[in-house]
């Protein structure tokens, strides 16, 4: 698993990190400086670019009128 995705998964399930603990956890990650910067900036778009996720994503799965 990508270290960035693994980190997001871990703080998603255990979010009780103080700002300093958050910064320390990022500093300890085995990822490049751009990834660390994006995490410190809470910049999901930058992370997505780094990980080459989709540029655009549709999410509607509902139709207001099926007729």
């Amino acid at each position, binding site marked *: *698993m*990508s270290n960035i*995705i*693994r980190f*997001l*998964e*871990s*703080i*998603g*399930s255990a*979010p009780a990190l103080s700002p300093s603990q958050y910064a320390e956890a990022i500093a300890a990650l085995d990822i490049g400086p751009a990834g660390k910067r994006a*995490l410190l900036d*809470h910049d*999901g778009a930058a*992370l*997505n670019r780094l*990980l080459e*996720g*989709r*540029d655009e*994503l*549709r*999410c*509607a*799965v*509902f*139709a*207001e*009128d*099926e007729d």
Partner: protein
Amino acid sequence: MSQQGSLACVGLGMMLGAHLSPRSRSHIEQADVVFVLVSDPLVELWVQEMRPDMRSLQPFYCEGTSRLTSYNAMVEAMLVEVRAGHRVCGVFYGHPGVFALVPHKAIQRAHEEGLAAHMEPGISAEDCLYADLGIDPGKYGCQHYEASQLMFYQRRIDPSAYLVLWQVGMAGDRSLARFSTGPAYRRLLVELLGRDYPLDHPVVAYEAATLPITAPRMDELRLSGLVEADLRLQTTLVFPPARPMQRNDEMLDRLAELDRLTRTAA
């Protein structure tokens, strides 16, 4: 001997790593074929890490094509694998049964064909909304409408309850082929809502957080400001009540009479 196929439509919840239930994770990990439709590209990558062979449903969307066509193609793509005897997992963001036609239709069609299919709930944007905005839907009651449906049909809004409008970013789209509409469409929505709410009534533009490093959007606007507001596909509008609940004195009198008769009979 061929294996009987099955379909499980599961909810990921809204936030990466935070909301996935153990049952849903097991379905994702153990299925033969996994289809995915989520609202954040990093969340899609997360599922891809769990299942590198996952199949995204994103390619079925096509601007200019009716979403119903896309939805039917998604359903069929899943059912082809179920009919082939595979254990199929459809992974959807939030709750797979809330404002989600595809999982409902896939399960219904599977059942019609005598195939096993079921749904595992997830934490929806609605659930996140109650937590983030501190709203209890039971306090005054809470109405939910898809924004376009509210515009297309004669509905009765109760302004003494909360009102929640979904998919406001494409409100008024009759073609089912667009993913956003503009200010002219929203002006009509505001006009419609203005029959029940003052134009300066507060409204919250809400978007649940999809990553644990980001915060939910909770922008307070005014009804009149919706025309030019930044409203996206994932934006939900939340209207607090505009007036107090009105007592139903006639029903209360009848209940009191019923209580009196019950006591007398006892």
